């Protein structure tokens, strides 16, 4: 369903200043093509679209954290960096150290510092490199108006649907409304143009048309490991880079259990039916990855394009995806 046709290009910028020559190397950038499957013979078909290519950082350098305030050495931030109408526009990314890969929304900023939604200070000891990165929006991936990739409609019922997980761990629906009041809306018809897709989050698209759609995402590949946090209820995630990861790699980060009710659940899309299927890691007798009906599941199944984790415990599980790319 998802193709990882990744073309990577290392962009190097050579700046000449008089007789001095300075070479600055940017992140690895490239593109990725994902396929949103057509509905086939059913009424709809689900597909994951991964968001693992980031926009270019607006600042990268040493950070010093005191609580939620991170002072950025050499920064000169300006413009719209804080939230707009409550929607964050940028996030802080920890790039080095043991906390590399953690991200948190920027809630406020000055020329030389940002305030983050979460206290990252324990992950930003002196000398840690951090970046301030613009959020990727839903519109960046699926388009808007003339460049819309999925099919809009007069109502959420008629249009292709897009699901993203909200802060309570619940999937929420979005669609592109056509005609009167055209634009991205949530299922309550409230404007959703500013909706963001978090790093390493997967978008779920419910396609109601027969024809499949290709989605090309462009951006930087992470130059550090990823920290993917699974908190209570549903979490949406994907591989932190356009490389394969397996179902088996999620355990023991997520919790197993004696049965599907006790264990954390992983939801993947059945490539034939386009519906979500439940998997879990069974502990004890017959330990291993199972389907919800306790059939043996393929632990080597590639889940890089997207997966959902339903975390049962109130404490979070944090998956560290090592940088292997």
């Amino acid at each position, binding site marked *: 369903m998802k193709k990882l046709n990744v073309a990577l290009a290392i962009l190097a910028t050579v700046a000449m200043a008089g007789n001095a020559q300075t070479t600055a190397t940017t992140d690895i950038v490239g593109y990725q093509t994902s396929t949103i499957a057509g509905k086939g013979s059913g009424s709809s078909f689900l597909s994951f679209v991964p968001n693992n290519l980031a926009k270019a950082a607006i600042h990268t350098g040493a950070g010093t954290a005191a609580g939620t305030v991170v002072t950025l050495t050499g920064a000169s931030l300006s413009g719209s960096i804080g939230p707009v109408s409550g929607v964050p526009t940028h996030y802080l990314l920890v790039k080095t150290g043991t906390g590399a890969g953690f*991200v948190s929304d920027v809630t406020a900023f000055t020329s030389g510092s940002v305030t983050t939604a979460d206290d990252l200070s324990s992950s930003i000891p002196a000398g840690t490199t951090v970046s301030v990165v613009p959020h990727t929006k839903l519109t960046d991936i699926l388009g808007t108006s003339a460049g819309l990739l999925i099919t809009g409609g007069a109502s959420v019922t008629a249009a292709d649907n897009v699901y993203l997980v909200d802060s309570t761990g619940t*999937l929420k*629906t979005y669609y592109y*409304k056509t005609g009167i009041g055209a634009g991205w809306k949530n299922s309550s018809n409230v404007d959703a143009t500013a909706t963001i897709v978090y790093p390493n989050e997967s978008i779920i698209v419910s396609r109601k048309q027969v024809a499949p759609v290709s989605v090309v995402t462009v951006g930087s590949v992470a130059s550090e490991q990823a920290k993917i*946090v699974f908190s209570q209820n549903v979490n949406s995630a994907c591989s932190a880079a356009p490389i394969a990861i397996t179902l088996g790699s999620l355990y023991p980060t997520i919790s197993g259990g004696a049965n599907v009710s006790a264990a954390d659940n992983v939801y993947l899309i059945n490539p034939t039916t386009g519906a979500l299927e439940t998997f879990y890691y069974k502990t004890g007798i017959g330990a291993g990855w199972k389907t919800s009906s306790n059939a043996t599941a393929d632990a080597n199944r590639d889940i890089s394009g997207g997966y959902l984790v339903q975390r049962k415990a109130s*404490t979070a599980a944090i998956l560290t995806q090592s940088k292997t790319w």
Partner: protein
Amino acid sequence: MNKMTKIAVALIVALAMNSGYAALTITGATASSYNFALSNGSILTDGAIFQIGYYNTAVTSASFSGLSSASAFQTGWTSLASSTANAFDIPGLRSATADLATGINTYEGKSLVMLVGNASTISGSTQVGVFSNSSWIVPVNPTGITPTDYAFDVSDVGTQALFGSLRLGTGAYAGDGVVNSANLQAIPEPSSASLLALGVAGLVALRARRKS
């Protein structure tokens, strides 16, 4: 905000998330090719009430004929959601959403109705519109993790005005040309209704006297 931004320390704090994983979202609107209008055709102004809900018994146009107060339209009525603001910043359009958490199946199978007034409350309105459609039925609340979204609109085939009227090519969205309108209807004032009733009674009595 997505949970991916939560870091370990923050996430140790217990999160109060007991609302279930999925939800049934019901959105009623006039947002496709109709706008709400008053009986004289003028666009329903912002601040006027729009409700989606259901009556506890089946209703027809006969259920509302002869009602002489706006509050009478609320007899047996359960409002699931309401809005007094326009939708999409366009006067005359409305959208209201009921978000039902998993496990709330109280409304499954109910016949949905739109109840519209020309004031901020139904009881304070002098004009009311009641619109229904046999296909507007509250669906089953999902039990999985993916939500169910049910949208219904005045423009759906089969919509009928139980009180008020549906007029083709009479309304106008701001800047979008002539479209259709779902019009409210004036509620007979109690005095008028009483006079009408008295008049009818008088005619009946007169006719009876002449026969005798």
